[in-house]
């Protein structure tokens, strides 16, 4: 819920009734001296600098070597970067990860949005619903993946049992051994598990929309979908945008569920970018090349994120 969107609709902006307030950085350097701000922010920076930026710098150095996991290394300059796309597994992983991201992003947002709509009216039982819908996220994608390993087994797993009971298949599908099927299963899992987060984010943003807006819309005879499209969505636009950004970054960095469920198989069919990097570094023991691939990935994600910020910014 941004100040900008509130300004647009002129409703629901938190005030204390004393006139226009202006959230955001204060210009009052007496009550909010810049130095204090810097101090407040320092612990976070130190953490990030020590535990992420420093290793990242070192990783950059590693990417210019042929650093093997075991044994001595030598400096080889830009060679890892120049041969980046000669690794067929890496190239395939890029395509696969993009495909995966494309498949899951919209359903996650849509399902999360739908769930939020379902519970925002706050009828009886909506608190219970909110708890249940968020539960898969609470349990976590890693634990859920472990559980799914069991349930995706042919003949004995729940997925196949249900399909057999419904008469769709004979229950012997080996989901995790077939590229497209495994991908489908993982996409369903991810949408199911992660939409709860979107729901929570969106719902709280929706809280900021006062009833009068809906009332006047209804008076004008707007349908449910029109209301959503023309009123709700623009008002929570920034939250939707942020959910989308977080979701895309998460999808591009997907690792755990693939590692646990298919190990990137069969062959390298379901290997995501981070899976490929992990294998290159820790199975093939070519840490130098793997790190170069990681740095490239970080750059790309940063670029994508900046682009998303720009494209989804408030044009105000």
């Amino acid at each position: 819920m941004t100040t900008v969107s509130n300004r647009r609709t002129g409703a629901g902006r938190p005030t204390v009734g004393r006139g226009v307030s202006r959230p955001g950085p204060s210009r009052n350097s007496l009550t909010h001296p810049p130095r204090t701000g810097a101090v407040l922010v320092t612990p976070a920076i130190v953490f990030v600098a020590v535990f992420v930026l420093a290793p990242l710098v070192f990783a950059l150095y590693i990417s210019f070597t042929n650093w093997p996991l075991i044994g001595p290394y030598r400096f080889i300059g830009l060679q890892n970067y120049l041969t980046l796309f000669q690794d067929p597994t890496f190239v395939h992983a890029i395509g696969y990860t993009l495909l995966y991201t494309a498949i899951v992003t919209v359903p996650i947002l849509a399902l999360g949005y739908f769930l939020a709509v379902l519970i925002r009216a706050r009828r009886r039982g909506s608190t219970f619903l909110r708890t249940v819908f968020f539960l898969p996220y609470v349990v976590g994608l890693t634990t859920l993946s472990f559980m799914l390993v069991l349930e995706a087994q042919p003949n004995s797993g729940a997925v196949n049992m249900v399909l057999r009971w419904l008469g769709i298949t004979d229950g012997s599908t080996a989901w995790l051994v077939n590229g497209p099927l495994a991908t489908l299963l993982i996409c369903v899992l991810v949408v199911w598990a992660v939409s709860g987060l979107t729901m929570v984010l969106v719902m709280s943003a929706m809280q900021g929309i006062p009833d009068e807006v809906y009332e006047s819309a209804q008076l004008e005879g707007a349908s449910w979908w029109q209301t959503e499209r023309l009123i709700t969505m623009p008002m929570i636009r920034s939250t939707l945008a942020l959910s989308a950004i977080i979701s895309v970054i998460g999808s591009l960095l997907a690792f755990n569920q693939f590692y646990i469920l298919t190990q990137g198989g069969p062959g390298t069919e379901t290997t995501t970018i981070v899976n490929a990097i992990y294998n290159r570094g820790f199975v093939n023991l070519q840490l130098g090349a793997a790190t170069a691939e990681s740095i490239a990935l970080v750059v790309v994600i940063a670029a994508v994120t900046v682009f998303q910020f720009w494209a989804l910014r408030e044009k105000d």
Partner: protein
Amino acid sequence: MDRRAFLAGGLAGGAALALAGCSGTLPKVDARVASFGRNATGTVHVWCRSATQAGLTAAVAGFNKANPKLQVELTPVPDGQYVTKLATAIRGGEPPDVVDIDDINSQLFIFREAFADLTDVVKGLDYFDAISPGHLRLLEYRDRYYGLPYLADNSQLFVNTELFDRAGLDVEDATKDLDSMLAAAKAIRKTGDDVYGWSISGNAAGIIGFVTQPHVWATGVDMMSGEVGKQTANITGNEALERMLEFYRQLWKDGVLSKATYADAGTTWGADFRAGKVGIFPTSYGATVPAATKAMRAKMQTVLIPSWDGKRSFFDGGDNMCIPNGAANPSGGWAFMQYANGLQQQQALPDGGYFPTRSDAATPAYRKKYPLAFGPLDAIEKGYAPQTLAYNLLVNQPSSPYFAMFREAVFGSGAAAAMKTAQSDYTRILDQVQA
């Protein structure tokens, strides 16, 4: 101010890293000292594979009780991350004292001088001649030994004697070479709808490598040739390999294997055999016997894996124990290693599903207690495991060329095309790893 903090943090981190990164080689362990392994005190840090933690926990308890001044601390590490974690620890300058490591991973470290040279103390053992040569090979580099074998995980053929009798077959005769086995398996398949002549997990890379390669090794060749670090692919023209692939292809085509073989990833390895539904089952002791009923065990018999021309072999899987260079307490480590190799400890290994690595463990008492666990010990020189830097990549990984070749040859277009692809993939990987 925040910028300064950020810079400070980054510099501090970077400096620490530079220092750490520059810690190149660790001090080599000198195992020639007369007192090596004796009079050691303090703590011994031992890493084990998660698969072996139960057995080692018992051994550690025994050792700690017998040596109040020298205590072992055991840390189990999941298989998938073992090599990484060890390599990282070595780089960080803090390796453990003893590693119980998958034997096929030993060469990775030995080749790069990360493990201690223990030749003198190993050769000085009074049971040195009884130690599994297959395991020792994996510890050897340029005629020096860099560790001590600990336990063996051997692949054998398990047969269901009841099914053999019903089909009128003699075990030794019917399993002497590939042709006889094919005939036997077919005969057994005919004895019942739900009875299968052979069982294998067609979609488990590790298992496939474990049980099928000995057919080739028995003839004295491997899928790679040459000295470690300079190996080349040996797929094309490998007759034993081709015959083995054809054999399995026939099993599949003739319906001797169950249909589930194609997708079976080994999650229930051995269940069908233990249920009495399979005639011949190449497998490990640990996957099959401990979970079997007493009645079923009475119907089991083991034979070594034959090649097409009647020679025998088996996979010398298992663990070696090594001491990384730079270990804090190498002397204490060697004391523990000797203990773990003691007859009493070795003879208790089948309880955990593994075999001893010394043939003198097969005493009459042992044979009586573990009738299915002394076959490989009596023919210990026939065991083999590839001495190479790329075993994992070549065979064990789901994306490995050996696995792909097997599946293509058996379920796909056949051995010829499969072997051709494998030859180039093997070459590519060996070049990459040995660069």
